Every structure is written in structure tokens, then in C-alpha cells.
């Protein structure tokens, strides 16, 4: 099977509100950086996958139809893949298949959201079935907080443990030039911060951001010709779960486990804690990072609080998680999953700058969205196998 590599990445300067660019201009900024990184121009790109969050975030339906001018993609294949918060990874998966399936050689994936433009919580609340609970919805915060509360009882995911995630990721953001939230916090400050949807408190929550990310994929043979530092995609999968299926477990994410198992098998990972040098996970709230530790097999079930407390997931630990700062540094929702992939690629190719994990060769990526029922996993490496 053809190996696929990331040959260029780009990110905008993320911000709370970018008044200088439209949605289309924002996406272009990331694309131009990715093209420059790869040493390519749009003429070298066969196909474009646009990924962004729910269109109601930005009042423009099927925004790729508008973005096409800013992307310089006239007369190319342009399609949008959307899958809530994990959409960037779902877009990258579509791009991989285009190359492996023989319809394109080089594919540009661009993911973005300009969240300053809409009413975020009202918009996400329409995720809920209009007949079944929408009036109680608080975006995804209501159920996210509720199941964190349940994990506290069953898995020991305490408020203190989640606060440590906030402390770690916000400290890591200080080293990331693309992050726009640059403020360190303490466990005490997180615990004392205002409850938004208890047990979720304001410092458990990432910022609302404008931002975009672009990634260029190419196949083996072509990839090495483009760059001396391709980041090889060793596996990628994106699984779903019916939102109100019988006996759906919200304590551990089944689709995450299924996706991880498939990707680990494809990439020869049998001991994730030991084999991965770095992980980038998409944490819409601190509590999710704890849950992902377990779902991704970085620790046993019920071991997440101990893992964060041990320091293992710090920059200096044996399995650093989110050296970029994760979503806590910037959270343009539709772009965040692709940012995780780009950051992991930067890590395994030694391009992460101040937040580089020295010698990182194998990186783990996690993303997801919706009713916590869409979950993707990817593995990237400095070598093909």
C-alpha cells in the first residue's frame, strides 16, 4: 500500500478575533504558509479538501464555495468534509484516500474556523435533536461536564487532576508562537475559577479562537522529492458511534478505542506509552485529556489522574502530551484537529521550535467531535515504518 507523508504545514496567527481577514482570507493565510513550507505553489496541488466546523458557526453554508477564490483553486477538485471538532483529521483522512485511491498526487487540506463571528454555544446547541433535549443544551458543555462528573466517581478523574492538565497545557502554550493564550495558571487558580457548567470551570475551558491550519499530503516517491523531512502517516482512522444507542458508554469512548486499535495495528504500536515520543490530543475541556489517556492506552483505565500527577505527560516526561499547548493555547474548533496533526508532524521532523521534544520520532494524534461520538486517531513518524 502506498505510504503517504505530510510535506508541508502552515498555521495562521491564531487570535481571539482576527479583524484583518475574512474567513476566506484566514484560510488562505494558513495555505500560503503550508505551500511555502513545502516549496510548492497551488499549481502543484491536484485537489483540495476543506474542513471546517458546523457551517452555522460562520453563517456561510458550504463555505468552501466562497473560499475557492482565496485558495486559488478554480477548476480543481474542492470538497468539504465536516465532522464537528475532529473535522480536520477527517479531512486529512479523505485526502489520504484520494492519493491512495489514485485520483490525486498532492492534496491540500485546509481547516479553519472563525469563531469570533458567531454565537458559539447557541450554534453548537443545535447539535441536539430538536425533539430530544435541545432546550437543555449548553453546546457540548452540559454532557461533557456531566460525564466528567461520572468519571470522577468511577475512574477518579478529579477536579485537581483536570486542573493539572490546564496548568500543563497553558504552560506549554507559552513556548508556542502560534498560541494566543499566553498565561500560566496554578492548580489552585483553576479550582477556584468560576464554574461554567460544574464541574467544568472557566480555566478548564480553552479559548474561542479564529484560526486556520493547512497540511499538504503527497505519496511516497513524490514526498521525498518535495522535502527532505517528510512526516510519514503510519495510520489514521476516524470512527463513529450512534449518539443514543442502547447502553452507550460515555465513561470510555468506544469509537476512540476502536480507532486506536486499528491505527496501532497498522503502525505496529503495541505499547503506546513506551513507543510514542509525543502525543497531540484535542481537548475541548481539560477532563477530556484525562479520558483520552485511558482511551489511547497511555495508562490503564482509572489511571489518568495518576499519569498527569506523575509528570509523565509534561514536556519533560516520558510521554509528553500537547507540547503545543493543545486547545488551551488556541481553539479554532474546525482547525484544531488538523493543528494536532500538523504539530505532531512538526515534532517528528524536528520543526517544532521552542516546544520541540528532542529526538521525537513517533507521534500520536487524537481528535474528535460531535456528541463525543466521532473519534479519530493518527500516528505519524519520521520514517515510513
Amino acid at each position, binding site marked *: 500500500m502506498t505510504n503517504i507523508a505530510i510535506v508541508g504545514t502552515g498555521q495562521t496567527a491564531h487570535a481571539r478575533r482576527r479583524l484583518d481577514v475574512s474567513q476566506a482570507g484566514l484560510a488562505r493565510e494558513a495555505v500560503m504558509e503550508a505551500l511555502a513550507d513545502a516549496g510548492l505553489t497551488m499549481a502543484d496541488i491536484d485537489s483540495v479538501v476543506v474542513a471546517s466546523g458546523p457551517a452555522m458557526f460562520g453563517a456561510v453554508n458550504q463555505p468552501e464555495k466562497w473560499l475557492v477564490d482565496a485558495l486559488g483553486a478554480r477548476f480543481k477538485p474542492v470538497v468539504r468534509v465536516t465532522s464537528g471538532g475532529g473535522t480536520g483529521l477527517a479531512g486529512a483522512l479523505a485526502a489520504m484516500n484520494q492519493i491512495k485511491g489514485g485520483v490525486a498526487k498532492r492534496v491540500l487540506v485546509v481547516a479553519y474556523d472563525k469563531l469570533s463571528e458567531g454565537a*458559539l454555544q447557541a450554534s453548537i446547541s443545535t447539535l441536539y435533536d430538536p425533539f430530544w433535549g435541545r432546550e437543555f443544551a449548553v453546546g457540548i458543555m452540559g454532557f461533557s461536564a456531566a460525564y466528567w462528573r461520572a468519571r470522577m466517581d468511577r475512574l477518579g478523574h478529579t477536579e485537581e487532576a483536570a486542573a493539572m492538565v490546564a496548568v500543563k497545557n497553558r504552560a506549554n502554550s507559552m513556548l508556542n508562537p502560534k498560541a494566543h493564550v499566553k498565561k500560566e495558571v496554578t492548580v489552585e487558580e483553576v479550582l477556584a475559577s468560576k464554574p461554567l457548567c460544574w464541574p467544568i470551570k472557566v480555566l478548564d475551558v480553552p479559548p474561542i479562537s479564529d484560526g486556520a491550519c493547512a497540511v499538504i499530503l503527497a505519496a511516497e516517491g513524490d514526498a521525498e522529492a518535495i522535502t527532505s523531512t517528510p512526516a510519514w502517516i503510519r495510520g489514521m482512522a476516524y470512527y463513529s458511534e450512534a449518539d443514543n444507542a442502547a447502553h452507550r458508554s460515555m465513561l470510555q469512548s468506544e469509537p476512540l478505542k476502536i480507532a486506536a486499535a486499528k491505527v496501532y495495528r497498522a503502525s505496529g504500536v503495541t505499547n503506546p506509552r513506551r513507543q510514542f515520543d509525543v502525543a497531540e490530543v484535542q481537548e475541548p475541556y481539560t477532563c477530556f485529556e484525562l479520558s483520552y489517556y485511558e482511551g489511547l492506552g497511555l495508562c490503564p483505565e482509572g489511571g489518568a489522574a495518576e499519569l498527569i500527577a506523575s509528570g509523565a505527560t509534561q514536556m519533560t516526561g516520558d510521554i509528553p502530551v500537547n507540547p503545543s499547548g493543545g486547545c488551551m493555547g488556541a481553539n479554532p474548533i474546525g482547525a484544531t484537529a488538523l493543528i494536532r496533526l500538523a504539530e505532531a508532524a512538526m515534532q517528528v521532523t524536528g520543526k517544532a521550535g521552542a516546544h520541540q521534544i528532542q529526538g521525537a520520532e513517533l507521534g500520536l494524534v487524537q481528535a474528535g467531535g460531535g456528541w463525543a461520538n466521532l473519534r479519530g486517531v493518527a500516528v505519524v513518524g519520521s520514517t515510513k515504518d
Partner: protein
Amino acid sequence: MTNNATSTRETMGSMTSRLSMPYTLTAGKAMGTFLAELGAQRIIGSRCAACATVRVPAQDFCGDCGAETGELVAVPSTGELTGWTVTERGILAFVLLDGTDVPLLHRIVDTDVSSLVLGARVSARWAAEPAGNVMDITGFAIDAESTVGALAPTNELLAPIEQLAYRMELTYEHSYGHFYGSLFDSVKNDRRIRGIRCPSCRNVLLPPRGFCDVCFVPTKDWIDIPDTGTVQACSVVHIEFVGQRMTPPYVYAEIVLDGTATRLIHSVGGLSAEEARSGIVKPGSRVKAVWSDRATGSLADIEYFQVIDGSA
């Protein structure tokens, strides 16, 4: 956002849902400048740095070739009609302004339809009070006397309009269909909750549905469900946001009613936020529906769930 279930037993047809959401949209530099300059009755276009195409409204990027705009240009307010269509919402037209390569899409005003011909000279009509949007030109009118203008360099451009307030209003008539219809008809008229059983896995599904999500087989038997259940998970909502339908604080709860295998989303009431956080309601708490006086055929017919003795 509002939901109004107004149907009667006879119809149980649809539920109206209105989404009304505010936006502040960013136009970008060129478009923002175009919009700002309209207020001064000036039309700004852009010339592509690569292919030299001149387009109006000014764009940051060239739709033809994808290059960035080289310069903004002042465009005459006169041009020729290159297309039109008469619709219920008025006459829409393509107007190729003098000196440009790409027509402007706008409206035709103050003009009798029968006088429209391709190639006719037109000129802009301006709003008396500029509002900072594209309707500062109310439209274009036939103007046979207009002389052919020329592009001019721009100087002292106004600062771009950075944000436009926008509101999207979308109205839906969501069909109840057979399954929600049967459930909510019973809820409304008989205060009876009904689920449906999957013949394969035997789980009772609420809300009822035509196919079991897990087995993908048609569901079969309707099952009466008590209005008691167990809290699977809950949180305490404090945050306030635009479009919110409940008034915080309230307890968001996902409840598994007795005998079912799925989640009902509602609130747990009759207690304060402090009580909720203290553990009076928590995963495993037993709850019972407190029925409302309303009969709407929706979950709003249950006022809230209250904690009862016992635990799961």
C-alpha cells in the same frame, strides 16, 4: 431559539423550530474598503497583481487566478447592463462598470422592465442615508446620457469596515413522524411514555425509532415506560449565552428511565445549585418526572425530574 409544539392529537404533524443567531462578519481589507467607500458614494475595485483583471467589488484575491490583489482602483459609477432577471424580489442585474473586467451583481431600480436591453448605459443610485453595506447603492438605473468613465487611482481611502452585524433566521417544521408522533401523542394526551423494543438485542429504546442503531434491524414492540429512572450523568449549568432557552442555574441531566437502555435529556429540579453540587443529585440518583400543566407534546410536558429515595 424556540420550539413550539402546537399540534393537536389529530395532526401531530410537525414542530416549529426557529433558529435566530447573531453574527459579526469580517469582510477583509478589500471588501471592507469597498463597503466603507460606498458611504462616500465611491466605488472601489481591485486589480489583480498577476492577471491584471479589474473586478468590483474589490477583492483581496483574484477568483480567476488566485493571486493577491495588486492595487485598489476607483471605479466610475456608470457602466453597461450585461444581464438581468426579473424575480419576485426585484430585478437583479450584471452591471459592467466602465473600465472593469468583471460585472457587479446588483439591483435595477427606477427603471421600467420594458426599457431594459443588453448593453444599455446605467448609473448607480445612492441611498440617502449610507448604512455601511452594499445597499448604500440602492441599485442601478438606465441612464442613456451617462458618459463612459475611466478608472482612477485611489487616494486617501477610508478605513475598511471591519465587521458587519448579521443575523440568520431559519425556521423549520420538523416532522414528528410515526415514532416521535406516537410517543409525544401519548405524552401529551395520556401522560404516558412509550419506548420501542429491538427484536434482536431486546433493548428498549427511548425515544422510539424505526431501526435499532446497534443491530440495524426494524424495531417492533411498543413498551410502556414508567416516569422514574436513574441519573446516568448530570452537571450544573451556570453559564449564560445568547439564545439560551433555560435560565441558569439548572441541573442538566441524562436519565435512563426504568426499563430502557438509552438516554433522556432533561433537568433535575427542586434543588439549588449548591445542593446539586453537594451530591444530592449525582450519577445513580433515582428520579421521577414532575409533570407540567402544559400539554405541548414535547419534553416540556415534564417540568423537571425530582430526586426520589433509593439509588441504582
